[in-house]
Structures are given as C-alpha cells and as structure tokens.
C-alpha cells in the first residue's frame, strides 16, 4: 500500500488530501501517468516527494511509501 498526499489545487481537484493505492514497484513516472489518466490534471510542474524527500521520476516506489504531490510552492 502506498499513501498519496495532495496539496493546494490538487487537493481541491481530487476532493481529498490522501489516497491509498494498492501498488508497489511502480516508478514515480508511472504513478504520475496513472493519475493524469485517472484525474485528467496536468502534473508537468508538480514535484514529487517520497517520504518527505524530493524524488525523481525514476524512483521506484515500495509498499509503505508516502508520496506527496507538491504543486509549485509559494511560501514567504
């Protein structure tokens, strides 16, 4: 099981801040592709963090990972 976290406009688009996905050994890129086809939103500028560290598209996800979708940040 992988936990997905959504923030800002992604959270509003999905209607919840957290999803559980029964998957493992998929890459960040494959997960993004699945979300794009399931929800139809653009993830081009969205960064991904795995277990609170920024991750690249080739990162392989394992059961228990927490994957956060980080839209362009605007703190400060």
């Amino acid at each position, binding site marked *: 099981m992988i936990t997905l976290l959504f*923030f800002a406009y992604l959270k509003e688009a999905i209607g919840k801040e957290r999803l559980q996905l029964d998957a493992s050994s998929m890459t960040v890129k494959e997960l993004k592709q699945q979300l794009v086809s399931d929800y139809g939103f653009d993830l081009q*500028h969205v960064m991904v963090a795995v277990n*609170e560290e920024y991750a690249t598209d080739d990162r392989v996800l394992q059961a228990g990972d927490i994957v956060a979708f980080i839209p362009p940040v605007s703190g400060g």
Partner: protein
Amino acid sequence: MMTLFTITDQPISMEEVVHKVIRKEAGAVTTFIGTVRELTNGKRTLFLQYEAYVSMAEKMLAQIGAEIKERWPEAEVAITHRIGRLEISDIAVVIAVSTPHRKDAYEANRYAIERIKQIVPIWKKEYWEDGTEWVGNQLETKAYPTGKPEGEDVM
C-alpha cells in the same frame, strides 16, 4: 529544546524568532518579515490562506539552515512560517540571521527567503473580491486563475 525552524498556525512573535539567534559572538542580526500585501497587480486581496505539508516544510527549513551553515559557517538562523488564514499586514514569515559581521547576515538572510520560495512546501491561496486563486510558480510570477495551469503550461 528550542526549535529553530517552525511552521505555526499562531501569530508570529518577531522578538521570539530574533532571540533564538542572539548570542555573544554576533555583532549583527538581520530580520526579514514577510507580510500579507493588499494589492497585487492592481487586484485587491481580502485575506489569504496558507497551507503546508508541515512535517516536510519544517525539514526543508532546516535544510536551508544547513545550506546557510555551509556557506556562512558563523551564521545562526531561525525561521518561523505561519499557515492558516492571514489578514492584510499579518506576518507570514520571519527569518532572523545572526553573524559576527553585518555583510554575512544580510546575504544569508536573502538566501533564506529565496530558497523558501523554491523548496519549502507551502502554498498561498488568494481570496479576492471576485474569487480565489492559488498563486502559481515558485517565483510568484504566475498565478492560476482557474486553480490549475492552463494554456502554455499544459502539455
């Protein structure tokens, strides 16, 4: 233990943040205070809402502190960022840097705010008179009126 890098939903005390970095070796303390601006490109903000991935945001603030230590080894840094609903002129962020000499304190403080805008997972939603919008990219040069990228941003 005193926390140097904090996300809070409470009003920020600037003095508290400053006191975290004051010490006898320091001859300079610079502070940056980010406040809520009423007018952006002629549009009037009523209030805004900050949201954060709190646990990761505090880690990223601490990472910025570590980056500053590498570049300015004598600097001490404390950063507090507020989330939740903020009114016009409320303080959103306070950065305090102390160093033996002023030049480093100015430079390190500037570095901290620029890095916050690049890597810290905090988002700002503007509430206008005629609607809302999530502020767009890291440098705040782009907004997403529909709540998501469109036009040239869409592949």
